[in-house]
């Protein structure tokens, strides 16, 4: 099975992400684009859907600098004094996607502006006795 014939699943999407590739999918019937990818087109119900590589470029649509974080982020050392920025990003291709926004001052939320052009930044987290974990992130372009 060639790369592009891999079934569109969460597992395979995350597998691409671990190789620092952001993938979406495109419905060959109606042209709808999905990122994260979907195997069943939720616009026209077609299953004739293919992988597409996303540019990773977009603009900031919504964000929050979070002081009381989820456990994963608390474990990474974030706190009220050291907030992190959660963001929703509108990709240039159309779909929106969620990622941590880095390269901004999360202690000064008012300094971060909706509409700011962004580019993808694949974030590595050290995992004891394993390959580093890769999560989707963005930074100002």
């Amino acid at each position, binding site marked *: 099975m060639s790369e592009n014939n891999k079934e569109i699943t969460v597992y395979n999407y995350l597998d691409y992400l671990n190789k620092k590739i952001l993938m979406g999918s495109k419905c060959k019937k109606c042209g709808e684009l999905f990122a994260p990818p979907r195997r069943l087109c939720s616009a026209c119900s077609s299953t004739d859907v293919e992988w597409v590589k996303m540019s990773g470029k977009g603009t900031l649509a*919504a964000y*929050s600098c*979070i*002081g*009381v*974080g989820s*456990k994963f982020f608390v474990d990474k050392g974030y706190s009220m004094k050291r907030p992190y920025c959660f963001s929703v990003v509108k990709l240039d291709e159309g779909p929106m996607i969620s990622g941590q926004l880095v390269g901004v001052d999360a202690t000064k939320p008012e300094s971060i502006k909706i509409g700011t052009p962004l580019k993808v930044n694949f974030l590595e987290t050290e995992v004891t006795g394993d390959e580093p974990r890769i999560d989707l992130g963005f930074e100002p372009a």
Partner: protein
Amino acid sequence: MGNLSRKIALVGAGMSKFGQHFPTKRNPDLWIDAWINAVENVDNGIEPKDVDACYVGNFTADLFNHQGHLGPNMANLVGLTPKPAPRFEGACASSGIALREALLAIASGVHDVIAVCGVETMSEVPTTMVTDALSAAADTTYEYPAGATFPGLYAAIASAHFHEYGTTPEDLMRVGIKNHENGKENPYAQMQQTIKEIMESKKARLISQGQEAPEWKDEIDFLSSSANPYIASPLRLFDCSLITDGAACLFLAAEDVAKKFTDTPIWITGTGQGSAALSLHDRNSLTSFIATREASRQAYQMSGLSPNDIQIAEVHDCFTIAEILAMEDLGFYEKGKAAEAVKNGESKRDGALPINTSGGLKSKGHPVGATGAAQAVEIFKQMRGKAERNRQVKINVERALTHNLGGSGGTCVVTIYQK
């Protein structure tokens, strides 16, 4: 979409005191408190033999208390064994769903009388675990690794609403100030203090500790200060609802039997439920909840009412921004206009459209799975002129609405009540 095939009345409603009760009270104790309170509010009395089924709404006792299978457990405690006792889950809309499903079951003719239970004990686990459990109501695959928390998602919505409509942090603060003014008048509320009283007591405490007296001019000044830290910008501590333990109980009866219980039933004439993608990024709008628009569309159509007909409403203010969104998505105000209405006092107890006279989730408290049923308790009291202390609205309420959201807007249940 069809209508309810027979009339259904709310004949009794009650709740436990909301607050942080663990370890002295847990789900079984709180539910018994709510049941007893609701039984007392049924004019002609009600007994377990009158009740055909117990519909339980609970988000996640599984994570909060390591207890699943709550339906038969709650039913047994109030003498309803071996009657049907399903449990419904839709995050913070769990008991709104239980209420709706009870209506549909009575309308079907299968049952005549159903007890609806909403129950949640959140304070058993530390705050980090509460945050994590609540974030399970958001998308775990894509949003959680990006850092999303429950407040963080509503905060992101607020950032977009600020950007699109010019809403300000002060607009959000006014929602909280108003809801605390109502909660002060509710003996069942978790925080029975106004923001002003909280500010004065903080000031007094600082002075008694020998610190310099803070120069807070008014509530807005206090809420804009470091005494009210960011949880998830732009939302600060006092923009967030509380971590609460509590339960609520409703008795619903078909028209044929309702008269047995009361001469002044509250008819439920409209119910609607909507859904949306869990992830904000999978939605068309970041500033409007499609689930609310859909649920209210159904409920208005079923009842034959329009937003203008509604006289009071309990809306799901898990965060202050959520009350603004609800006022707009329920059709009470145009998009971007709700903040101005709050500023003008329209949503206060004596305003044109009182909202959250109970104190809302912000001041009354938000035991997530119990909230939908507790909203109906307030409407039951207001429509019968029985709201405690000074919070009874002065108008004769003929038409009211409750709005119960799940998660970050993935589920919504809207219910309409008429005399």
